Structures are given as structure tokens and as C-alpha cells.
């Protein structure tokens, strides 16, 4: 799967990183948050992943960069809060029985700790909406379409263009095949209860709902095989409702669809 040593992935990440920092730096220079973000971004060449997947789709990568931004902001905010807390905890330990100054309030400080968080939240919201618009965008003319049907306890993948069906449940896990570098629109439905269509490496999940159709796009950037899971509790064998996602080159994808046309793989 995604390996930091993989030169291809690494190259893409660096590109993405540049994009992200150029987004942050000019806009929020005045705020403490952006200063902290920029300082951390400059002091180390690459921002750590903080344990998250780098994203194997363009959408997933955008989410990953947003996550990094949130992580840096939270380190800054959490760091300041904990520094204040620890300072108070040690500095103001009880020394004697005297009664300290009875301070009731300090309006400028109170306004400060109201306004600064609002500014931070507005910045976070701004970047959230930008990334969100990318992640939820559905192309009017995708290269491929696939219909995913979730059921207790398995998945059915149907490619309408070639009338290909991949279905499996129980001990064999079905495989969703996607072309790299192309846009695939997924149409997601459920036959019975609510399921969660979740591909961790794509940084994406969406509920499969009975009676409601969801649509979203994947633009895979990396070839490879990834695990997919059901994330929403759906009954007894929820834990075993797995699938795999195989991203292959467009050429390999064409020959695969040609070989599978009209077939049902169970």
C-alpha cells in the first residue's frame, strides 16, 4: 500500500505539501495559528503524517492535507493551553495560608480568549469548505461508472458500461477495480440496513442507505491494492464485511473490462 519510501508517492506528497502551504501562508499571516503553521512547516521540510493515510486519490490527498493543517493548528492551540495550565499548576501551588487577590474578571483578557478562538475557527472553516467542495464534487462526465450495492454481509460492484458484476459475501471478499488517473463515479445504495462504504487508504467513507442513492467520485493516483471495510454497524457479521480495491493503469483496466464484459463473478 502507500509506502513513504515509494519515490512516486513521495514525489506526489511533496507537490501536495507545496500546494497546501501556499494556501495557508499568505492568508492568515496575522493570526497566531498561521504563524505557527508556517513556522512548523518551514522548520521541517515535510509535515509529518500524524498517523493518517496520505490518500491514494486526489480527493483523499486533499483531505490528508486538511488533516495535517488541523493537526498543526491543534498542536499550536493545545500546546498553548497546556503550557498555560502547567504554568499555573506549578507556579501557583499553595505557599501559605494567606488569601490571594480576589480577582473576579478581566474583560480585555476575556474578550481576547473569545475572539482568538473565533478567528481560528473561521480559518479552519474556510479550508474545510475548500476541501469539502473538492471531495464531494461529482463529475458530469466521468470516465467510468460503477454501482456499489451493500447488503448483509457483502458487496456487489456493477459496471454498467460493460454489464460486469462482481459479487461476493462470506469468506471471499469482492474486489472493486478502478483505473488510475481517471474519474470514476460511484453510485452507492444498500439493499437492507445502513452500511458504511469505507476505504481507509482513500480517506473516505460514505453510508450506503436503503432508499437513498449516494454519488461520489474517485480519482485514484496510485496503483495498488487497498482494503475496504464496512464502517457502520450492520448486524452480526459487520466485522467481516470486507472488500478490496485494486487500482490499475487505464490500459490494464480496459483489457480487464473487455475480458469481464457481461460476466458475473461470484
Amino acid at each position, binding site marked *: 500500500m502507500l509506502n513513504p519510501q515509494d519515490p512516486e508517492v513521495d514525489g506526489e506528497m511533496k507537490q501536495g505539501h507545496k500546494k497546501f502551504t501556499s494556501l495557508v501562508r499568505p492568508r492568515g499571516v496575522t493570526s497566531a495559528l498561521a504563524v505557527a503553521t508556517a513556522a512548523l512547516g518551514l522548520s521541517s521540510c515535510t509535515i509529518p503524517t500524524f498517523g493518517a493515510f496520505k490518500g491514494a486519490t486526489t480527493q483523499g490527498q486533499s483531505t490528508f492535507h486538511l488533516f495535517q493543517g488541523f493537526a498543526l493548528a491543534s498542536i499550536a492551540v493545545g500546546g498553548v493551553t497546556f503550557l498555560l495550565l502547567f504554568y499555573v499548576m506549578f507556579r501557583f501551588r*499553595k505557599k501559605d495560608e*494567606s*488569601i490571594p487577590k*480576589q480577582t473576579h474578571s478581566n474583560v480585555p483578557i476575556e474578550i481576547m480568549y473569545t475572539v482568538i*478562538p473565533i478567528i481560528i475557527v473561521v480559518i479552519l472553516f474556510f479550508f474545510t469548505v475548500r476541501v469539502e467542495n473538492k471531495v464531494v464534487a461529482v463529475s458530469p462526465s466521468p470516465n467510468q461508472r460503477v454501482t456499489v450495492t451493500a447488503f448483509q454481509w457483502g458487496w456487489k460492484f456493477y459496471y454498467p458500461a460493460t454489464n460486469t458484476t462482481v459479487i461476493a459475501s462470506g469468506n471471499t471478499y469482492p474486489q472493486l477495480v478502478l483505473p488510475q488517473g481517471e474519474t470514476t463515479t460511484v453510485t452507492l445504495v444498500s439493499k437492507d440496513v445502513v452500511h458504511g462504504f469505507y476505504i481507509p487508504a482513500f480517506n473516505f467513507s460514505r453510508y450506503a442507505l436503503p432508499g437513498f442513492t449516494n454519488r461520489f467520485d474517485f480519482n485514484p493516483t496510485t496503483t495498488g491494492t487497498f482494503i475496504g471495510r464496512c464502517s457502520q454497524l450492520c448486524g452480526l457479521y459487520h466485522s467481516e464485511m470486507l472488500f478490496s480495491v485494486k487500482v490499475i493503469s487505464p490500459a490494464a483496466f480496459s483489457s480487464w473490462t473487455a475480458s469481464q464484459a457481461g460476466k458475473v463473478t461470484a
Partner: protein
Amino acid sequence: MTLTEEKKGESDHGQAGHHEGPSGLYRWLTSTDHKVIGKNYMYTAMVFLFIAGGMAMLIRTQLASPNGHFVSQQTYNELFTIHGSIMLYLFAGPFAFGGFANYLVPLQIGAPDMAFPRLNALSYWLYLTGGITMLLGFLTASGAAAFGWVGYAPLSSSTNSPGAGPDLWIVSIALVGFSGIFTGVNLVTTIFYLRAPGMTMFRMPIFTWNMLVTGLLILIAFPVLTAALIMLYADRHFGTVIYSVKGGGSPVLWQNLFWFFGHPEVYILALPFFGMVSEIFPVFSKKPVFGYKGLVFATLAIAGLSTGVWAHHMFTTGTVLLPFFSALSLLIAVPTGIKIFTWIGTMWGGQLNYKAPLTWAIGFIVAFTMGGITGVFLASPPIDFATHDTYFVVAHFHQVLFGSTIFAGFAGFFYWYPKLTGRMYREWLAKLQFWVVFIGFNVTFLPQYLLGLKGMPRRIAVYSPTDGFTFLNQISTVGGYLTGLGFVIFLVNMWISWKRPVPAGDNPWDGYTLEWATTSPPPSHNFTSLPPVRSTRPTWDRNHPEHADYKSPHVTEYAKKEVSSSEG
């Protein structure tokens, strides 16, 4: 009306009358005294805490190894469903608004009892009945409910979850829901109508303020849940199709109704505990609370915003307006942040007396800050898409809820234990318990953030050795056992304190609020006399006249007049 009658009764019988009243089990069964009911609530909730905590130990044991066979998948699903249901419906809420609020609100506002004492008793008995009903699910042939504490439709339908277990779950929560509504009515009425002379709204202790807002939130949220449950029951048994696609209903409706309850519920659970630490930080710093009005307005802001954030639990349904719910969810971090800074501001420049209540309350700030910050991540829809229904969320809400209910809850419990019992707990055992639980808690939940980011969904009974989840799960399990050990230390502490009582005195902490102006434990109608209420700290004013709040320039003109007229 009841109150005046009871007061009359009191003066007729004289003081000795109370001590000849019923005692022991009969008193426990028949009492309408808010203090007895409050204690009943508190101790019952703690029993449920231990039951659900035991379930957590079983859950962690199952997850300690890949392909775990400690319990079956069906049993596992039942365990986490009832673990969550007990913790949220039977422990966290009732412990706070049934236990602490019942006991403390009348004392803090100088009232002799709650406004509706019999309704209060009914609340408790509905709660106890509801709790037992939920546990009975395990005795049915098909087992307890196994669809998670959120009971999503249509998994909770009669086709997908047949049997009596799910029915008992529905009935149980409906009963507890009514109990909560009655308590909410009682709290709001008590606070509006039974405040002692001089106890204006802006002289109420922060805890009472938080309980007022909690009561209002209960009245907004619980009826929706109860209605949703009745509709679910009708779908299961009377052939309605409210949540069923087949008859033209909508499964997503359940999610909307449930979370319209569920998100205010999170604050119904958290606000009482915010209130408790807002009492503890000032007393153990020997300072008034910093920014009293700011705290009150932050509480009101949280309550207002909390009714408009429910759909952040539904970002991945594809059926909600993402920017709206994202914006409000991010915004709710602001008043929550204000509270944290207010508590730090309260301690700033103080004389911090590190007794167990303060230690636990600081532990609460640490846990809650971490859980709050990761909550900001989840308020961002793209990040939620990546982490929804994973262990990232599990870690987040445990840091928030365990942080509030356990760290702030035990801070409050140890703070008011002398008032409840007239005795002192053992300080060193309370501190030992803190460190064991604090370390155990972090070792349990911090690895779960990483597990979530690695893609481990919540509510899975088994995972594969090739998933790379094993090591982090093992750490988490060790942390879980350590946390469990911490609660054994608590039992030891209570046992020793009960067997070898150390009298605590009426006001061992130099407390500020009216409950510290009466005896420990208080007499049956709470006060024989009340100190004058001229500020938020009447007991402090009485005990430290040279530093009294009403003498500070902070005081309002109105209070100044009152003082000059009473002194003149």
C-alpha cells in the same frame, strides 16, 4: 404549595420530628427528600458504572488479540450496545442531573427541597425500573439489543433485530427518558421559583446555572427521543412504516430524530460536570471564579448551538447540508474553549491546594482539552469522511465523556463527599486512584486515535492479524485493565471510609456556596438559618467578612444599597 404545607408540618412537629422519621430501607423506599433521592440516584448510577465498566473489560479482552474468540460476535455486539447504553442513559446523565443536581441545587439556592418532591421520587423509580429493564435483555432467548446505543433504523426493525431484547431496550430508554424529563421539569421549576431571598440569577453558583441550562436542554431533547422510540416500537409491533423504505418511510428520519436528541444529550452529560469543576477550581484556589458572567454566557451559547449541530453525526449520509452543520460544530468549540480558559484564569494567582478534588478536576481539563480538540477535527466534513465510525471517533468521545463523567465526576464526588456523608474519604487513596485511572485512561484511548487513523472501524468484534491493529489494541487493553484497577481502589477507599469514619466537619474546604453553610449531612429541610446572600459566595462572605465579595468594587449598586440598609 406542597412546600408550604410541608413547612407548616415541620413547625408543628418541631425539629425532633425528622429524627423520628422512617429509617433504613423503608426510608430509602418512601423518601421524597431530594437528598435521599439524590444519593439513591448517585449510588445506583455508580452500580451501573461498574456493570458497564465490567463490560468494557470484556470488550477489551476480546480485542486484545486478532480473530478473538473470547466472546462470540453476537455477544460482542450485545456487550458494546449495552455498555454504551448504560454509560449514556443510565450512568452519565442520571449521575449528574439525578444525583448531584438533585442533592445540590436546592442546597445551593437555599431551598428546603425540590419544587415537586413526589415527582422527584417518581423520576428515581422510573430510572431504576428502566435500568433493570435494560439489563433484563440479557436473560431473553435472543439476547440483549445488539444494534449499538444509537439503534439505527432499519437495523433495529423487527426483521433485522427480532426478539424481546430490543423491545426491552426501547422500553427501558423510554422509561429513563420520562425520568429525565420529570427531573428536567423539577430542576427548572426549583431554580426559577425556590431561590432564597437575595439569590438573584446572577448570584447563583455556576453549578446551579449549568443545571438550569441542562434542565432546559433535557426538555428540548428528551421528548424527541421518547417520541422517536415510541415510533420505533410502533414500527416493530403495530405495522407502521415510519422508518421503513418499503412503506414509504425513511430510515434517515431515525438518525435525524435520534441525533436531535443525541447531540444536546452530549451537553446534557457534559454541562453538569463543567459546573462541578467550576465550583472546585475557585475553592481550591481561594479565589472567586474568573469571569462569572462569561462562564454563564458560554454555557448558554453551548446550549443554543447544541440544538443545531446534530447532523455532524450524519456527514457521511450524504443527506445533510455540510457547511451549515460544520460551521456550527466548529463554533461550539469557542464557548467550550472559553470555559477552559476561565478555569485556568480562576487558578491564576491563586493558592492551589492540591486535594483530590482539584487533582481530579485538573485531570478533567487535560482529558477534555484533548477530546475537545479532536472534536474540532471531526467537525470538518472531509476529515470526518476519513475517520467517521473508526476508533478515532471512539477515542474522541471517550476522552470527552470519560473526561467529564469520571474525572470531573470524581472531582465532584470527592468534593461533596463530606457534605453527603459528614465523613472524609481517604486522601491518599483518592490520589492513588487518580493516578492509576489517569494513566490507564490515556494508555487506553490515545492508541485508539492511531487505530482509527489506520482504518479500524468501531464495533468490529474481530480483526485480521494482517491489519496491523494488534499491537495498539494490546496496549489499549492493558490500559483498560489499569483503569479497571483504579475503580477497585475507589471501592477500597469507600470501604475504609465507611468502616473507620473520620468526621469531616461542616465546611472542610472553606467552600463558598450555601451548601457549606449548613451541617454535614444537612438536616431534613436543609437549613436552620441562612447567611445573607449578597454575592455569588454567601458562605465565603460570612466566613471572610474582610474579603467579602459585596465589599469589592465588582459589586452592583443594588447589592450596595442592600448592604447599607441592612448594616444601617
